[in-house]
């Protein structure tokens, strides 16, 4: 298996203006031991909360989706954003068009799919929801908030 997502040029969609982190990621365990790691990669079984003490020094967190049907990474992403993480949150792995809008809402701002996605389809997917029902850290006003000013 290729070790995707570890270099910035494999990122297909990015919603940030800063420079991408220019070095590879380490595992969550290594990140906890290594005081200088600035990029880490979360696997589905990892507890995102173990990273909370180190958020200040992290520029990039990759969340791996070995299979798109395994939705644990969505919770990992929200937990990091809820804790105030402002660095790059990159979804990598088995990503399809139809996951993009939900991932974006959960706080992902970069996407490195295993297989390049059709740009037009993706643009449509990112724009799927004019409005949303749930409050997340993406700061969009929810439908309920819009209803009540």
């Amino acid at each position, binding site marked *: 298996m290729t070790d995707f997502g570890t270099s910035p040029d494999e990122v297909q969609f990015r919603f940030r203006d800063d420079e991408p982190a220019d070095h590879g990621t380490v595992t969550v365990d290594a990140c906890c031991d290594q005081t200088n790691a600035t990029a880490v990669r979360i696997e*589905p079984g990892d*507890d995102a909360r173990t990273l909370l003490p180190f958020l200040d020094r992290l520029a990039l967190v990759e969340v791996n989706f070995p299979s*798109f*049907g*395994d*939705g*644990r990474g*969505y*919770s990992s992403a*929200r937990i990091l954003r*809820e804790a105030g993480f402002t660095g790059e949150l990159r979804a990598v792995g088995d990503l*399809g*068009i*139809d*996951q993009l*809008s*939900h*991932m974006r*809402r*959960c706080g992902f701002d970069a996407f490195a799919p295993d297989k390049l996605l*059709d740009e037009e*389809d993706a643009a*449509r997917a990112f724009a*799927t*929801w*004019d*409005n*949303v*029902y*749930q*409050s*997340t*850290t993406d700061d969009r006003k*929810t*439908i*309920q*908030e*819009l*209803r*009540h000013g």
Partner: protein
Amino acid sequence: MYAYDQYDQQMVDARVAEFRDQARRRLEGKLTEDQFKPLRLMNGLYLQLHAYMLRVAIPYGTLNSRQMTALGDIADKYDRGYGHFTTRQNLQYNWIKLEDAADILADLAKVEMHAIQTSGNCIRNISSDHFAGAAKDELIDPRPYAELLRQWSSFHPEFTYLPRKFKIAVIAAEKDRAAMRLHDIGIQIVEKDGEIGARFYVGGGMGRTPMIAPMIRDFVPLDQLITYSEACLRVYNRYGRRDNKYKARIKILVHELGAEEYTRQVEEEFAHMLDQGVEPPREELERIKPFFADPAFEDGPKTLDRTDPDFALWVKHNTHQHKHDSYVSAVISLKPVGGIPGDATGEQIRIMAQLAKQYSVDELRIMHTQNVVLPHVKIADLYAIWTALGAADLGAPNMDSIEDMIACPGLDYCALANARSIPLAQRISERFDASGKTEKLGELKLKISGCINACGHHHAGHIGILGVDRKGVENYQLSLGGSEAEDVSLAKITGPGFTEDGVIEAVEKVTDLYLNRREGEERFLDTYRRIGMTPFKEALYD
């Protein structure tokens, strides 16, 4: 009842557009069947034995006559003239062409309906008490809370790829008419010290490992309802098992962790989430409530002329006490003798819609027992309604009787089945009707599943029948003593299985024993609970 505003409509329209796009990409070969499958599933489209099946969501089982009419029209236009009402208060079409699916969804969207999240590993359509807003015994109408949960659970970005499907039921009476504790989350709206709140039961379910949900919180204040639900779901999304599809439901997580540890984790997550602004503004609940306000009930006759014995029988079985004493809720049985439980023709669906318009404030409900309710019917109109129902073959006076069976599609439609369910249900109802035994037995809930997945709720049947495969021959296991109601319990297997003829004989034997042994007003279930399994075993196997 609830009506969409521009935002709700926009969400559904967006989903129709999205599905059209997905279907296009599938046809263009950009999506493999593997990739397409979870997407079509999230739009209620299953591939069955013979054709595609489309499941339409009926939120908390409530709909109006315009929506009901549209369901009848779709049955005629795109199916073979039938719709099938399901145990989760939804409607299913069994003969759908993939090419038509997007058009059907567009037709549904015109009447504020959809098939969103009626399958797939996401939060499914929220179910509720079919007598909500009408029953005399309820604390409050549970549907505003169900609607709040509907909005929250629709397209939830974090919970679209859960370990497994997730079902929520909301009730607000001590009597449980929604199998609440056999849901992944069962919510009972309760009152404590003059305040309304929600009691949470988590980790119930049927399937191959049936479990009754334990209570994990006796009172969640209403302005934390969504936040608490979100905490329950997040713990499940993170820690529910994904290594084995048969152990992936939340009931297994709650069971393996223990209710106490699961609760601890939820409470911890909940405490964190309270600061995250997850809860919708309180005004939203206040906005929703008036949609479910009582219609203007009119005083009228409170008694009936019961001289027609057939009418009297129907009234006795198929009406339910209403909170206004000039009204009742009337149950339309979709269990005609020898029929397919839950099936209705397009024409019958339109007739029920018409009756709702004329006699029931334009409202209908779907019951988890696969029947239909006219919730607000004047006692004065009952005879006219009954006459019209009879003319449409919808007048069976058999609610909660042995003929009012739940049966899953079984081997006639389902690829997973071991045995046929529908023909067995048909034979039992014909036989018990012909012998007149149905009436003697009173309340007796018989439930049939064609395999261990338990779509027919056999674990919760006073009498349950499960199709098993025995060396390639259809075989049926009998179980006794289940209940999905407030006296919830799981049925126990009697012993070795039976052939199709044999299991019908077995039902005769256990019901005979009940008739011999019952005391006073006891139901079958009560007698079973009092005398235990042994006498039934003796009657069956000695």
